[in-house]
């Protein structure tokens, strides 16, 4: 950006803002990892690809369906574009998440966890490479049109905050509050917590376990789609669906879930922001080339010294 040295306070504020913005996306993705882990006890490797799908579906809706690619010159996109694209992406990814669980994971419900992990890697590779097909998204990077006007909404300590950043930081918070309510205040949430605690007992108590698992996948995928939508809004240059960038984003979100304590919904939110801030502080004040290294170093440290994560409970393997 600027070539002259930044004012230290300005730099810090900008770094924190960027960290929070990306942290919110990590948190949204991490929620999907952690909810699935809480219930099925396996890492849904394909989750990062659902996030990618969310970003690309947003692009398809904005450019191919709503024909908004010229809006930058035509005075901005209409106001209803943001909610329509967001809900469309969430709906599409929710459906895909449902199908993935039904077709790939459900037949393996009783299989060893390693087999499910391998299946998940297979699903991940399948989503990436189907996305690369010319009839789907194509093998080239694309550019997302600006759905929001480039207006500065407020200034924080001298840093201008455009309306995009307000949405990118605000939407995850709103969605997380909603999720918190859903999981801890509703009957569905109670059923989810029951299945996570003990699926057999929950089934005996009359919980429809299969339906709860499907619901969890739909919910997690929809949250990942929201993160993908926000990512496309903030970083408008979308890499092709099988690009390493997407996998790294998904992996960092997974690290966020582990750091927070996998299986713990509040931990995933905390971990998301922690990883986002850590990454951007490292880039701003240490060496920017190593931005991926910091996150994995934290993962290894957490796994060594506090394997259950910040908010998780340690479990003992029983024989």
């Amino acid at each position, binding site marked *: 950006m600027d070539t002259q040295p930044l004012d230290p306070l300005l730099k810090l504020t900008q770094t924190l803002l960027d960290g929070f913005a990306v942290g919110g996306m990590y948190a949204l993705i991490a929620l999907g990892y952690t909810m699935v882990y809480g219930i099925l006890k*396996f*890492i849904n490797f394909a989750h990062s690809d659902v996030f990618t799908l969310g970003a690309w579906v947003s692009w398809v809706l904005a450019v191919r369906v709503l024909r908004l690619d010229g809006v930058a010159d035509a005075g901005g996109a209409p106001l209803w574009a943001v909610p329509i694209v967001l809900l469309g992406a969430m709906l599409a990814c929710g459906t895909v998440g449902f199908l993935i669980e039904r077709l*790939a994971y459900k*037949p*393996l419900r009783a*299989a*060893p*966890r*390693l*087999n*499910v*992990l*391998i*299946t998940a*890697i*297979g*699903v*991940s*590779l*399948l989503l*990436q*490479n*189907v996305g*690369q*097909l*010319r*009839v789907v998204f194509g*093998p080239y990077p694309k550019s997302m049109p600006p759905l929001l006007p480039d207006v500065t909404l407020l200034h924080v300590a001298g840093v201008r905050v455009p309306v995009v950043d307000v949405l990118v930081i605000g939407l995850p918070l709103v969605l997380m509050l909603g999720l918190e309510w859903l999981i801890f205040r509703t009957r569905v949430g109670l059923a989810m917590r029951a299945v996570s605690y003990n699926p057999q007992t929950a089934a005996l108590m009359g919980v429809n376990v299969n339906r709860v698992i499907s619901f969890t996948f739909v919910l997690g995928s929809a949250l990942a789609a929201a993160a993908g939508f926000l990512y496309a809004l903030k970083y408008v240059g979308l890499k092709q669906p*099988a690009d*390493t960038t997407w*996998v*790294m984003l998904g*992996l960092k979100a*997974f*690290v966020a879930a*582990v750091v927070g304590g996998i299986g713990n919904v509040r931990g995933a939110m905390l971990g998301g922001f922690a990883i986002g801030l850590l990454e951007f502080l490292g880039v701003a004040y240490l060496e920017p*080339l*190593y931005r*991926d*290294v910091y996150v*994995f*170093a934290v*993962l*290894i440290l957490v*796994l*060594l010294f506090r*394997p259950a994560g910040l908010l998780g409970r340690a479990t003992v*393997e029983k*024989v």
Partner: protein
Amino acid sequence: MSAAASSSRAADGGWVPALRSGAPVLVAVGLGLLMHFAVQPAVGAFKARVLIDIGINIILAVSLTLVNGFTGQFSIGHAGFMALGGYAAGALSYYGSIRLFGSAAFNGGVVSWTASQGTFGGPWVGGGDVLFVAACLTGGLVAAGAGYLVGLPSLRLRGDYLAIVTLGFGEIVRVVLQSTPAQLSQAADVAAAPWPLLTLKLGGALGFIGLPFYTTLFWVYLVVGLTLAVAIRLKRSSYGRAFLAIREDEVAAEALGVHTTRYKVRAFVLAAFLAGVAGALYAHLIGSINAGELGFQKSFEVVIMVVLGGMGSVSGSTLAAIVLTLLPELLRSVTGTINTHLPREYELPDLRMIIYSLALILMMILRPQGFCGLREIWDWRIGRRRRPT
């Protein structure tokens, strides 16, 4: 595969112990010489290149079988070890050649020379070959050291966490190697710089280029023979039984006195060593190495070979490595033929990864133990089962 199998069957025959333990080396050298002097002139340069690719993939797949198959762990960062080995070996052979011979040009003997490069009147084994072997061993040792460093703390982790840590490791290796300083190309600069500094100048994002070409069918199939012999003998040894015990039930293995972490680390270190050697062979095959090409996609390719071939079957993963190396060539010609009849809009893309991923999913649903499971191909042919699976 068949050569190594015959060697171990010969070993059952009660030869003198020295010959018995040396037999795999003789067989591996024989296999290498056979491929180099008999097969290569017969098949031509292109098919020889495919055979070399197959060999390198066999080394990778069989080495990963030690960890993912025998020991039941799940490593998905194997390409990271390959990259480390390739860079370490490349640094030694490139800077070593410049220091010893004045330039990074080929300085080997007949065993490192392919007929397609023209006739060659040099010695059987040149000074460059010695350097090349030293480079391969160094590459293996560097990768093994990294395997130890990664393995020791992270092998206390259970399956899926370990998978993520190895994936993270592979990506860290890639990022670090891609941000190394530019390489030195002037002989005077190389002579002036001390060795520790030289090992850091690895070309960064552009890749480490200009390495001498030494990898031939001889070297590749020498290593393939040794790898297969090690893997098959390991599986029948007390070490191998400890690995298999960990795979079946870690808690029970520990109760029976298997030091699980120590054995897991040993499997990891051995696999990393072999992957490092494979990386060294790869680097000296194409004359350069770029960590950007050895990301998790390459790791997943090796994992797919192991999973489809059979988790714990040496012959199964060998077979899978052969098939999965030939498949893209086959697919390319098939889609190429179809595409000539299709308009540009509807041309078929590279379907390889879509087929692989579907095969992976279907295999897990229909036959989760892989094509061969834990058994070897000759277990069927002879009609006996060594151990129930």
